[in-house]
């Protein structure tokens, strides 16, 4: 019965989303913007800043990590190594997409229902709090994940379009697959769960967004660590990270249920 209730909420959420043109535009255009920006930066760096980067100590350390993780890179020219390095950031860079969507959408998930008065009606159905919160998070995380995968494909096609087709072969690695199919779903769910928590605690969508904005910092930190060469997401590290985030998902869901104050919501939001 729990599954039936979750599916019921998912269907409703997706129906509401499909009726909201602003949401559809945002979910499709924002990721494309992020990907377009990534392609532009890669192209600009490679075109105009390549030499400076190649001479940089931090890059030397990062490229060393890359060579350890991907020995085949050592045989390439240093410019090609730079291309592989830049494109290898894609696996973590894509994590920004579900996180950004979560900040924009999950924050409305409960606040909107509070404002419309539909939440009290929902809370007098047999739905459990965990079912409500999980389905709210999944309703956003699943489309965000699909969009992220599409963006990954667009990014690869874009890179081929730039003329780096041979380099692409070097970055389609187990790390990328583990990141896309394990780490990204776990991060997407985590982002939306945190967004739902913010939404359930906030008085309006704006303050919910302020609360939830902090979600993006850990993702940026992972990107920063990899770009700076301090950490390289090998398949093992990616797998461990994905499992860690998945465990965190369960933990955060439990916290979300505890923080969801039915009584406060019912009494204060009329």
């Amino acid at each position, binding site marked *: 019965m729990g599954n039936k209730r979750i599916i019921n909420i998912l269907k409703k959420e997706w*129906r509401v989303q499909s009726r909201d043109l602003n949401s559809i535009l945002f979910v499709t255009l924002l990721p494309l913007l992020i990907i377009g920006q990534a392609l532009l930066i890669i192209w600009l760096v490679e075109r105009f800043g390549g030499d400076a980067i190649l001479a940089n100590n931090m890059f030397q350390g990062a490229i060393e990590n890359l060579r350890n993780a991907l020995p085949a890179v050592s045989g390439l020219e240093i410019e090609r190594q730079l291309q592989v390095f830049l494109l290898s950031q894609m696996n973590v860079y894509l994590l920004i997409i579900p996180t950004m969507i979560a900040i924009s959408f999950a924050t409305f998930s409960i606040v909107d*229902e509070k404002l419309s008065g539909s939440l*009290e009606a929902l809370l007098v159905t*047999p739905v459990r709090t965990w079912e409500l919160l999980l389905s709210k998070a999944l309703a956003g995380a699943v489309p965000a994940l699909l969009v992220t995968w599409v963006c990954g494909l667009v990014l690869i096609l874009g890179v081929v379009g730039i003329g780096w087709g041979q380099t692409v072969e070097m970055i389609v690695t187990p790390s990328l697959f583990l990141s896309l199919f394990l780490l990204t779903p776990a991060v997407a769910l985590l982002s939306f769960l945190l967004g739902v928590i913010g939404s359930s605690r906030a008085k309006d969508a704006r303050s919910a967004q302020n609360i939830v904005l902090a979600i993006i910092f850990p993702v940026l930190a992972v990107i920063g660590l990899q770009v700076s060469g301090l950490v390289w997401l090998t398949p093992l590290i990616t797998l461990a990270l994905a499992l860690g985030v998945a465990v965190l998902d369960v933990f955060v869901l439990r916290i979300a249920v505890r923080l969801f104050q039915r009584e406060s919501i*019912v009494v204060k939001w009329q």
Partner: protein
Amino acid sequence: MAIVEAHGLTKKFGEFTAVSGLSLEVSEGEVFGFLGPNGAGKTTTIRMLAGTIAPTSGYAVVAGLRPDQEPENLHQYIGLLTENPGFYNRLSARFNLGFFAGFYTGFDTDHQVEKYLRMMGLWERREDRVGTFSKGMKQRLALVRALIHQPRVLFLDEPTAGLDPEAAHEVRDMIQELSSEGQTVFLSTHNLVEAELLCHRIGVVRTELLALDTPENLRRSLFQRQVVVQLENPTTALVNTIASLPFVQKIEQAGNHFRLQLTDPEIYRPDLVKNIVEAGGRVMSVSEERHSLEEIYLSLVREEEDDGQ
């Protein structure tokens, strides 16, 4: 058999006591009116009974379950119409109802949706977005939502508040129809006419329960029953004769109308008429003065106010 029980229900919000020591029982099939002024604790009581908020002390049992301990299980058996019902305005009436019905088991959703939408006169608008509905239509739709899973107890919180007279009338008709089908209804209202029209018993609340009985018993307990007699050209002698009758406790005259307080109106009303006729009087009409529920309610609330001062 009681389907709703409250035992010393108390709810405090910080220092403020919304409901204090409320105890009552509602039988299966009964339409129970819960009357009180704004801020009297009606909505808070309903929320405690529906399991959406927990009591500070005391407990309730609804449909055999404790709302504070098993709210989700209880929700399978109750329906609640809130004062300001919310819907998903971008979705159709049918989708909205189908969504809420989807949380329950044991019935054919499509059949129930059609049955109640037709009953409420909303079937033709089933595919329209709820956002295009008037307040009255939304209220009727909310009533359908509360009913769709055939709850054992239906909690209605101010179901006609803010509705135009026609819409309010339709909602009352619906409640009467449900009552005739044996539906248990817990009706919170401050519309006294509505309560008198619909309810088998009434509880008057103002933080505490002030009175609980049928409207008729409340009348009896609060007001002496009075008989009003209209006479044709009453003479002083006739008035004196009436006043001297042993079962007449009090007599007030206003033109041809006499308001009489009898020892027992049921027994002595025929004797009164007989004595008037025997004394040469001509009786134009005899009726019993009924105090309205409004008078009962105001009497109780003012009495409580006086006690509080």
